[in-house]
């Protein structure tokens, strides 16, 4: 439990964007693990995948219960707005501070977390599992019960949507 509580707490926190909910959910996860430990078999897969699946199911239940239907910005709408965005080549030469520099500030962390909480749950969970929990596509596909291609697509869309939200927030902040 001591090995996994940090991982589970982070997963819950990044998904719910609430420390209290994350704490309650982490407790609930371990109570469920305790009760259903007998149903876990090594041949079914890695313990981490099983634990993550259990956590994800609980998060989905929590999401449905709390009706936490966030306003999700459409990718298509975003694409129209971002037509003037920089190309990869231009980006590399962009004199603005790099993402690493921006992430140094606590405020940026907060902004990213807020943007993460605003993207659709399907994209968010795939993104969290890949970029924060460092799971491979196969494991994520197993947890989300979708094909690997769908997982990759969701991760791409999630990353793009997050970048657009952050860019929009930044523009709004500079206008104010």
């Amino acid at each position, binding site marked *: *439990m*001591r090995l996994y*509580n*940090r991982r589970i*707490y*982070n997963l819950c*926190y*990044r998904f719910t964007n609430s*420390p209290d909910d*994350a*704490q309650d959910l*982490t*407790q609930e996860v*371990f*109570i469920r693990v*305790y*009760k259903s430990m007998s149903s876990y078999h090594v041949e079914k897969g890695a313990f981490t995948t099983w634990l993550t699946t259990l956590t994800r199911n609980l998060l989905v239940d929590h999401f449905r219960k709390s009706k936490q239907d966030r306003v999700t910005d459409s990718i298509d709408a975003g694409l129209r707005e*971002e*037509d003037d*965005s*920089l*190309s*990869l*080549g231009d*980006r590399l030469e962009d004199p603005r501070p790099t*993402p*690493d520099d921006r*992430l140094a500030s606590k405020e940026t*962390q907060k902004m*990213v*977390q807020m*943007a*993460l909480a605003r993207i659709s749950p399907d994209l968010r969970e795939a*993104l*969290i599992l890949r*970029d*924060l929990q460092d799971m491979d*596509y196969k494991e994520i596909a197993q947890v989300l019960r979708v094909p690997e*291609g769908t997982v*990759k*697509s969701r*991760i*791409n869309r*999630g*990353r*793009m*949507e*997050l*970048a*657009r939200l*952050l860019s929009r927030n930044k523009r709004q902040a500079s206008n104010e």
Partner: protein
Amino acid sequence: MNNEAKNGMACSEFEALLADALDNAVAADTRTDFDEHGRSCAVCGPMLAEALEGMVMVRGLAEVEPPKNLVHNILAATSRKEATAEQIAEEAKLGWMDRLQRSLKPQVGGLLHSRFAMSFAMAFFSLSITLTLAGVKIADVKNMVEHPGMLRKNAVLGYTHVEAKVASYYENLRFVYTMQAKVRELKKSAAPVEDPGENRQQNRKSAPDGREKPNDDYSMEHDGSLIAQTFTWHEGARI
């Protein structure tokens, strides 16, 4: 997004490789085509840039420190669950009386001690016998409780039943009196006519002390004929 091949790669192919390319998991020759397509395509280039930025942003998020009491709370919660499971197993071994006593509050549970239980049993026994003797059936009471409308109906039926019995009793009594009157009339018409003065004198003579004997007859016609007379209890009434 069009599927037109640019630099040896279609946009759909570029998109399919996007995730792997960001993980540096694309073969070298494919990577060259991928990069070339990304630089030349007006749609795929920005898409790659956004995906890259999003990935960097999310991966840059620091790990959150869980609350200090989290482990303690989890241990406490799981211990409680364990204790509950043990309690259930223990309760399963107990008899129904013990379980009943446990389920009741301590104050009420004390009433289940032998002396109180005996008193309750006696009270219940007495009550049930009284009700049985009074003709109250548990099924009737149950029906009345379950169907309150039956209460009024039963009361009306009971009253009607008693009223019918009383009416029948008085009808029978009237019939008896009518018959008595008829018999009396017949006797009167059949009996010879006697002098009432003689009869009275005879009675006077029978008295030893010379006084007129008090008449025990409780009913007499105006002409002195006897209708009914009281006798000792074992002789009954004579008409």
